């Protein structure tokens, strides 16, 4: 019983459209990763349906439908029976729903495959959609927004506020879980209709990995073929409205610290020519949860003002819990985003200035040769850690299919980064990153004093109770008066109780 996760390419070809020679194999309908010594089987069933497909007034329908499929009864078994059967296998399955895709992820030890497989497939093919599950899961979703997101996680609240602000008026412009008002409008018949419309046989890509037998893929494809055909096209990609100057959304609530997120839409997707250069820039500027992040060095390391500061060129859900990016949030529209972890209220103006000043510096001056070389070296090995499990690698391969990337994304990322020049990176920064038109979301209290300070560009000096090097203090003087042109007409205050209505 000795396992090792050796990479063994025992290949199964369903159609002839092979995009990769080794590792994951991508066909028209499937992404495969045979790993002979992995004692488990990983499934990822990716349906091209997400919150962008919610009908108007029924926002949250995609999420509720998927949640009912994986967290409720089937026509074959009650939910209690399903839990009962999964329990001894220590296995589970669950949907994740983003704007454009909903992915059913499951994993089981090979010993238990025969017992597990029908449970997983019934969730897709034969969901029960019972009244009891509907009430339970809808209430959970409403509580998740109304009680948890609004009141017990200010970092996630600031991020959600920023995304809704940036994509306002587009099919990306609300939580994947919907709106409180629309969730209450959804009926069980809506869920059934949505499942029939979107969970169709030609709208799914199968991800299968681990030590599976070739016959499993055939069985899976045949079973999924019993789903109906699609009759609906997804909506066009969103077109976010232009941002004029600095636009601020203050979510006002009583809280101990201020959470800040800011950003703007970018026109670069994974696989685009400038993507690789921006990936290098972003890693240097704000690699997620890594002390190599420049913003982290400026705000946390040198000044101890918060717990961490990062940036992104692709959506990164669950940043507070994940160290590495989760796959299967592929989108046709992405954003540049900066995440400032909570700071003391008295530092909120200063820290925003410090982050914006760093952004301006890099846009105006570009990266230096030294920064460029170091980041290149870092990323070449670090990206190997993005996807270490069979399931994550399958997820990345599904995303590559979405973006039309040939071959293994991580390998491609390494190879493209190794070929980059400093000039290419700085050109890409100039083309896509800017600091003048920005949407900013802040979760904080006493909004009026914040706004007054912002619109008057009041200096925001800080003091430290601990000794700080003189060069940092000298820089602080510049930061404290760094101009941020805010205008009252570009500032909106929303009470937390009114968020996500």
């Amino acid at each position, binding site marked *: 019983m000795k396992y*090792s996760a050796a990479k063994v390419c025992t290949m199964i070809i369903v159609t002839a459209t092979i995009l990769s020679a080794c590792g994951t194999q991508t066909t028209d309908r499937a992404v495969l990763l045979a790993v002979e010594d992995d004692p488990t089987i990983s499934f990822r069933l990716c349906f091209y349906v997400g919150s962008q497909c919610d009908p108007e007034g029924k926002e949250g329908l995609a999420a509720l439908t998927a949640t009912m499929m994986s967290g409720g009864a089937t026509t074959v078994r009650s939910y209690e029976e399903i839990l009962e059967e999964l329990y001894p296998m220590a296995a589970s399955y669950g949907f994740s729903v983003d704007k454009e895709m909903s992915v059913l992820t499951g994993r089981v030890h090979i010993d238990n495959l025969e017992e597990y497989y029908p449970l997983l497939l019934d969730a897709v093919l034969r969901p029960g959609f019972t009244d009891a599950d509907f009430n339970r899961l809808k209430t959970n979703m409403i509580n998740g927004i109304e009680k948890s997101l609004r009141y017990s996680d200010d970092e996630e609240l600031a991020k959600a506020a920023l995304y809704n602000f940036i994509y306002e008026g587009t099919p990306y412009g609300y939580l994947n879980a919907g709106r409180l008002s629309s969730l209450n409008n959804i009926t069980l018949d809506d869920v059934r209709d949505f499942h029939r419309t979107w969970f169709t046989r030609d709208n799914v890509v199968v991800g299968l990995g681990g030590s599976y037998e070739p016959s499993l893929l055939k069985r899976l494809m045949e079973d999924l073929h019993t789903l109906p055909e699609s009759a609906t096209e997804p909506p066009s990609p969103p077109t976010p409205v232009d941002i004029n100057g600095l636009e601020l959304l203050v979510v006002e609530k009583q809280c101990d610290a201020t959470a800040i997120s800011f950003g703007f839409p970018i026109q670069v997707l994974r696989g685009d020519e400038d993507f690789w250069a921006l990936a290098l820039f972003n890693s240097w500027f704000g690699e997620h949860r890594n002390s190599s992040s420049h913003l982290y060095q400026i705000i*946390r390391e040198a000044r101890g003002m918060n717990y961490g500061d990062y940036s992104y060129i692709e959506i990164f859900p669950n940043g507070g819990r994940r160290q590495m990016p989760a796959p299967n949030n592929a989108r046709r529209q992405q954003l540049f985003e900066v995440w400032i972890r909570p700071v003391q209220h008295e530092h909120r103006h200063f820290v925003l200035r410090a982050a914006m000043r760093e952004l301006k510096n890099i846009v105006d001056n570009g990266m230096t040769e030294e920064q460029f070389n170091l980041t290149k070296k870092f990323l070449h*090995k670090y990206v190997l850690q993005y996807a270490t499990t069979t399931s994550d690698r399958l997820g990345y391969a599904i995303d590559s299919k979405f973006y039309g990337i040939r071959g293994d994304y991580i390998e491609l990322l390494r190879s493209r980064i190794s070929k980059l020049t400093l000039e290419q990176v700085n050109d890409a920064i100039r083309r896509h990153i800017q600091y003048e038109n920005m949407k900013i979301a802040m979760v904080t209290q006493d909004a009026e004093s914040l706004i007054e300070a912002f619109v008057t560009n009041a200096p925001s000096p800080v003091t430290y109770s601990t000794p700080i090097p003189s060069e940092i203090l000298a820089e602080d003087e510049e930061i404290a008066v760094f101009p941020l042109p805010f205008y009252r007409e570009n500032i909106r205050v929303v009470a937390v109780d009114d968020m996500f209505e």
Partner: protein
Amino acid sequence: MKIFIQIILIVCIIGGSSMANTDGKGIFPYRTHVEVLDNGLTIIMIPMSSGGLMTYYSIVRTGSRDEYEAGKTGFAHFFEHMMFRGTKNYPANVYDRMVIEMGANANAYTTDDLTAYHLSFASEDIETVVALESDRFQHLSYEEGPFQTEAGAVYGEYRKNRTNPWEVMTEALRRTAFKTHTYGHTTIGFEADIKVMPTLYEYSKEFFSRYYRPENVVLLLVGDFDTENAMTLIRKYYGGWERGYRPPDVQQEAPQTKERRFNDIYDGRTLPLLVVAYKGRRLDPGDRTMVAGLMLGDLLFGETSDIYRKLVLNEQKVQFISAGFGLNRDPGLWSIYSMVKESKDIQYVIDEIDRTVEHFATTLVSQTDLDKLKRRLKYSFLMNLDTPNKVAGRLARPIAITGGIDVVNELYAMYDSITPEDIQLATQTWLTPQRRTIGTVTGRQQP
């Protein structure tokens, strides 16, 4: 399912150190090499194929449990931050730069029983990692200024945590459940103690000198690497590390004699949180009743339990109910958590928990249900060993608590031998009203 332990101890003397191999016939599927240097440093090596990556854990068997002095709560965690502040050989910026150049994923965490420093990196960089890690564990050196700045970052972490009502609950729970033992405070520490951290520069050096010693540290290496080469490097770089560990004066908690209660307020809004926490027993894989106790959480309150079916699925009175019956060096807490939808139902949920405990204390669990749980424990363990990081992450705690890796096979072998009678006895022994603390946290403003 049959699990049997067969640990072959090949004790041999290699350059003054002892070495043991386990042959992989217990539940743990990988071959394990264990070696102890003359200075007491234990090295556990687990080679596995992993695409050229490996994980390197330095496990310090000191966590917030060891903060026995007044006013020093949170110090183990704070000190973890200081370990990134460099040495004379490798000042912080040089250390950071080298870690960046390796593309390593480097981080650390602190819990009640341990502090772990971990790096994942390409195996070709092993010598650099051994050199860097051995250096900071022996020669850490920082000025008072950066020390004080770091205290600010810790306070920031505290503030981040306080926006989560569960953190409020954990602090109140520990404070109520323990009167003398250091489990009475959270790992982040009390706010008052965090505020004075900047004044404790001298103490920080004392802390390092007491606890960052080879006898109190275990190295855990997992992934694609050559064990002989690794040992050669470790002997070279850690061989001169001097002994000097001074155990903390942790006062054991007197037996609890009656039920305790607390009701705390969270500044924001939240659905009411409920915890019912019983005093457990320290990890001892040879103690049947202790091991049966660990199984109670899942058996009585897991997703297939009657109470879960009733409260979550049928009556839908709670958002969830779950149990955390964990491993600790000293007797810790075995807790049942719930998020109740309406305050008026809190007592009802407590009554249901009582009914569940009463049932298992008076009725033998069916062999079928017990077998399902055993199967679950086995697969839950086996399915989470697929990357070096996950293997090391899974093992760090039992290794920190016991100082070795044998505990893993021993524990799972004991799970396999537990009978319905053991479960009943464990329920009667551990889940009694006088051993427990019941607590609630409600939002200042009611939703």
